[in-house]
């Protein structure tokens, strides 16, 4: 990889809570350690920073049963994108009333699967998608996704999805003409955004559509979905969530009281809750530089370096002597499987551990089994005592 390596900021040492060596001995490496208490803390922090906003966890960030069970226990709602995610929620007995289906582009069988589960809110951003919902128009409510381009986001989601704001009146009229109930608007300014300006701007631009009932509409809009984008601190330079959300709270004060505000955080909840523990399995000096080969890499848990454009803090537990710029490589045969090029580290030996915090979001979720290497095992600490799937008779429908 040609991108510069980000050195581990000291603030992250707080995450060195568990005894990583003991966990590695007990479970083997590579290992992903999911801290459900940290997940709860993240949920509570964001809920406190956005009072009155219903948080729908974006399952795609880390689709794991302990994550679902923990967040369901906290009272979270959920954002579904696929039928596979519905199956995961069903196994944890999540009441469908706490879910919305937010994929703007759906196949008919996915709509039907969601309806059979009991999810009745869907997102559309163009006329074809409205047409797909017409057969179910008496059953569903629709959020229309609006696009506000945001080139500063790490992942700009407004390019792939969303109706341009100048086309919104025509799309809303098309929904009305089809007898669809438009419940409100949604937007996604991006993922891991630098500042709250894009959210604030998007809220302001949605306001005119929320204030009054359109002539011809079945009902006035009652939902505003802020999407995600809430950033976590990978590099020590990201604002705390309380400060990040302050301008958003100010903007939300302008939203009419009949509108319920929801958001779809994924990364903010999941990223700090999981840590990767990987071991040095080989080393060589090549071209005057040390290469350390680890048992996890970019085809595995570090896949987010490719797909999510994220670099994770790397904390060697056992380095000896003066740091020298070294290469940390993954376990596959592919030359692209390099985690860090110029990582300053003292001497590592085979069996030494490297701990990578902040690896909960878009890591295991996008890992592959390239080279027939199995996906890295996830061990959940502090998960709810009984995952719902264990008891067929439990009913949590409220």
């Amino acid at each position: 990889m040609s991108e510069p390596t980000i050195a581990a900021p000291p603030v992250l040492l707080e995450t060195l809570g568990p005894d990583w060596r003991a966990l590695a001995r007990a479970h083997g490496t590579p290992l992903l350690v999911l801290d459900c208490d940290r997940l709860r803390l993240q949920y509570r922090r964001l809920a406190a920073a956005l009072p009155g906003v219903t948080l729908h966890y974006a399952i795609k960030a880390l689709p794991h049963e302990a994550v679902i069970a923990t967040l369901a226990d906290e009272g979270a709602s959920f954002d579904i994108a696929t039928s596979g995610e519905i199956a995961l929620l069903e196994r944890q007995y999540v009441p469908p009333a706490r879910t919305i289906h937010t994929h703007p582009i759906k196949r008919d069988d996915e709509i039907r699967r969601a309806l059979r589960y009991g999810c009745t809110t869907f997102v559309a951003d163009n006329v074809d998608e409205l047409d797909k919902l017409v057969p179910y128009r008496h059953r569903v409510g629709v959020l229309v996704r609006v696009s506000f381009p945001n080139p500063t986001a790490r992942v700009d989601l407004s390019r792939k999805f969303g109706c341009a704001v100048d086309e919104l009146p025509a799309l809303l009229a098309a929904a009305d003409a089809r007898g669809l109930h438009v419940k409100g608007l949604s937007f996604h300014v991006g993922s891991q955004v630098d500042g709250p300006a894009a959210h604030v701007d998007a809220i302001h631009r949605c306001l005119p559509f929320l204030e009054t009932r359109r002539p011809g509409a079945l009902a006035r809009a009652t939902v505003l979905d802020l999407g995600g984008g809430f950033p976590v601190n990978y590099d020590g330079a990201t604002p705390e969530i309380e400060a990040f959300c302050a301008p958003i709270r100010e903007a939300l004060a302008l939203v009419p009281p009949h509108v319920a505000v929801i958001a779809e955080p994924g990364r903010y909840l999941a990223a700090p809750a999981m840590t990767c523990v990987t071991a040095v399995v080989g080393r060589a000096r090549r071209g005057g530089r040390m290469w350390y080969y680890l048992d996890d890499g970019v085809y595995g848990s570090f896949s987010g370096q490719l797909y999510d454009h994220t670099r994770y803090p790397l904390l060697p537990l056992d380095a000896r002597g003066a740091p020298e710029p070294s290469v940390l490589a993954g376990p596959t045969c592919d030359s692209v499987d390099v985690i860090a090029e110029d990582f300053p580290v003292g001497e590592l030996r085979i069996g030494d551990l490297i701990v990578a915090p902040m690896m909960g979001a878009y890591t295991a979720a996008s890992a592959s089994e390239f080279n027939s290497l199995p996906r890295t095992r996830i061990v959940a600490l502090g998960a709810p005592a009984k995952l719902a799937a264990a008891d067929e008779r439990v009913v949590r429908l409220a």
Partner: protein
Amino acid sequence: MARSEFVETLYDSYGQRFSIDEVFFESRTEHQHLLIFHNAKFGRVMALDGVVQTTERDEFYYHEMLAHVPLFAHGAAKRVLIVGGGDGGLLREVVKHREVEQVTQVEIDGSVVEMAKTWLPDHSRGAFDDPRFELVIADGAEYVRTAERRFDVILVDSTDPIGPGEVLFSTAFYRDCDALLAPGGVLVNQNGVPFMQLDEVRKTARAFRELFADWHFYGVAVPTYVGGIMTLGWATQEPTRRTVPLEVLEERFADAAIDTRYYTPAVHRGAFALPRFVQEAIER
């Protein structure tokens, strides 16, 4: 203490809720989620995929109207086919007719019948043990496509078309049913609540128009099928079945000495009078 309630998830902006006194049975498979619980008002309630299918206290509305309207209209039905209806409530009403010599029920999932015998015994009240009864565990659509026998009455007691019952609402299925009907035979199926799902009745009307010499719908307002009257589809090649005079129905009803709580010959006749918006939807 955790609040225990069932909120039906059929519609986004409207629905019914039940308090749960006790859960009797729950199973989740990759295909469906089945729940049977007790509610103070409705007794035992069975829900499939979040939608109420039947309850102990109001099931008679639906099962009596699904069974007795075609059977009394026919007057001499000997062979009856039930597609679906695994809870046994419809079967219970059918076997009340002494003229019926044989009832075949095709149910896709045998465990539904076993579950109903255990947890909804008042639905079947022993009807599964009737000597005239035969249970076939098979896909209903496949059965009507391949069966060699003929039936005087075919009753389709399906789930809603979003679920696995979708094929039971297809033109091909109705065509296969028509081929299985003996001369003078009648097909009846459920078509949802038109106030909420007008497309369903509209779609069935289009298919029936293409296939049957006489077709119509008749109504029954089942309390837990929210939204007003439910429409049951009526299809036959014999137009006189629908216009059997009230006196004849009364005579048949009296002779049968069947105890009912919803059905009467007058209700039977009146049920075919449809609200104007339904008439317009089916272009009648």
